[in-house]
């Protein structure tokens, strides 16, 4: 692999290899240093003072952080279920029907993805305090409702995109056959279309879950003192100072996101493999 085998084998040329190595260093060094120093036995995180897991232990004694993590999981779970239902309905609607205003709906559907997060964040802040105030004293987890609705709003568009892509590979002959054999709309939807959609639904759900778990800006504006999420709590810690405990919390979140992403990739990969075979 040392010498280029063809004029376009850019990967074998040393200037490009050097470039790639530099970009790799830029992208990964900060994250690796963050992870390594979450195990550093020193409060000042600059120099290595030996291995410890005490920062992780301290996280599990931090009641506020654990509560924030619990909030994040509940919000991610519920908003994912909503996004899945609404997003799938959207995908099916656009795939199945022709109707007035369809092009407009398709255009508007892309907006929650491109509208600046800060603009959406402040819009939700105003909406849930001045227009439809979300009662603050509701019992947990109902007090998380405003954040859940906000998250479902930006993630259902993503789910609709993923599910629609999956629908594109659907074999229409199956519907014709089912109809010839006497199946009605509901039976076709339940027994033929939905089973075909399962990989798309899983991928969409994982995407929505990860987006919700990761969101900071929009949550920052919709959360109140009793509805802190994990990223909002980490932000408060970061503003205060750089500490190994923040490194440990970050490492755990990186690990969780990486696992979810790997799962999504693996499921989609398995799906693609099946299609190729």
């Amino acid at each position: 692999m040392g010498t280029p085998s063809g004029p376009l084998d850019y990967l074998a040329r040393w200037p490009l290899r050097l470039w790639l190595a530099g970009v790799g260093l830029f992208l990964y060094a900060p994250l690796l240093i963050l992870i390594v120093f979450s195990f550093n036995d020193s409060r000042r995180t600059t120099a290595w003072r030996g291995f410890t897991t005490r920062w992780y232990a301290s996280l599990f004694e931090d009641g506020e952080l654990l509560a924030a993590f619990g909030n994040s999981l509940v919000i991610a779970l519920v908003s994912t279920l909503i996004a899945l239902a609404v997003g799938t309905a959207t995908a099916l609607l656009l795939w199945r029907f022709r109707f007035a205003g369809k092009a407009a709906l398709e255009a508007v559907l892309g907006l929650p993805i491109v509208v600046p997060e800060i603009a959406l964040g402040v819009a939700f802040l105003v909406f849930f305090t001045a227009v439809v105030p979300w009662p603050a004293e509701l019992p947990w987890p109902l007090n998380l409702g405003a954040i859940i609705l906000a998250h479902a709003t930006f993630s259902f568009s993503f789910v609709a995109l993923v599910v629609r892509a999956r629908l594109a590979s659907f074999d229409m002959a199956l519907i014709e056959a089912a109809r010839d054999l006497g199946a009605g709309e509901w039976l076709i939807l339940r027994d033929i279309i939905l089973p075909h959609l399962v990989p798309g639904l899983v991928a969409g759900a994982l995407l929505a879950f990860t987006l919700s778990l990761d969101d900071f800006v929009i949550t920052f504006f919709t959360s109140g003192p009793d509805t802190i999420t994990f990223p909002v709590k980490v932000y408060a810690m970061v503003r205060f100072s750089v500490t190994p405990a923040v490194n440990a919390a970050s490492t755990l979140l990186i690990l969780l996101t990486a696992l979810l992403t790997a799962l999504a990739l693996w499921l989609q990969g398995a799906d693609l493999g099946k299609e190729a075979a």
Partner: protein
Amino acid sequence: MKEQPARSAPLLFTLLAVPPLAWLLLLFAAPLAVIWGYSFGENRTLIDIAITGSWANYARALKPLYLAILLKSLLFAGITTAICFIVGLPVALSIAFAGPRARLALLVAIMLPFWTNLLIRTYALMAILRTEGQINSLAGALWGTVAVPLGAGPFEPLPLINNNFAVLVGLVYVHLPFMVLPLYAALDRLDRSLIEASLDLGAGHLATLWRVVVPLALPGIVSGIIITFIPALGAYLAPDLLGGTNSQMIANIIERQFRSANDWPFGAALSFLLMYLTFIALAVQALAQRRSAAREAQG
């Protein structure tokens, strides 16, 4: 089966159409409409806002102080996009022309930081750039072993954080994948024989890149530029955590109006200015794509 008219299965159509339409209307359009209304309003008391139809908030947003921040945000987003393009193009080229295994590995390597929480990536930069961070301690150690024996003074930590430089590093760090992925998608679709022909006919690699690859991949390049520019323009965390008092961007000013200054009408106007800039960028992209599609249809 072709798409069917709605009346062929009215019940199913209604069941599928109501949730997304209601959701978009009540939880997307309505909150944004309220903000839009507020942008033409004024504070009567702390929480009572009257929508008076005045343009005062927009006029204030275009006064020199805020106009400077708006222009600075555009400049930062522009510089970020340019750096991402220069850094990302060779990466996208390498991925597009790599073997299938190396290609997958490189794509995952680019995407992995992308999936890591934005706040955590910004924090990771903060930790290494700060005065006591790893870069300064490394530079200090080098200075101590090389420069001090030669008679230089004690090490002065490099000013790597709380300034414009740190914000730009943060913006590039966060947005690089936004550029690489569309570039890769465009390069992957190129007709390789054209590149080989250019090389065979005596053009060098750089000349081929500039005169063959870039023009052919232009729609993808425009996409990459817009997709990088839009989120960079509205970035909140990088200027907030890495910038100093003089490197705030428009998102930070918006946040301040809503959370500490409590001037919602003014914040709403700024927020909509940001939205309009975003829409202009999207319109440019749509126009570029339509033009290139038309050119392809002619050719």
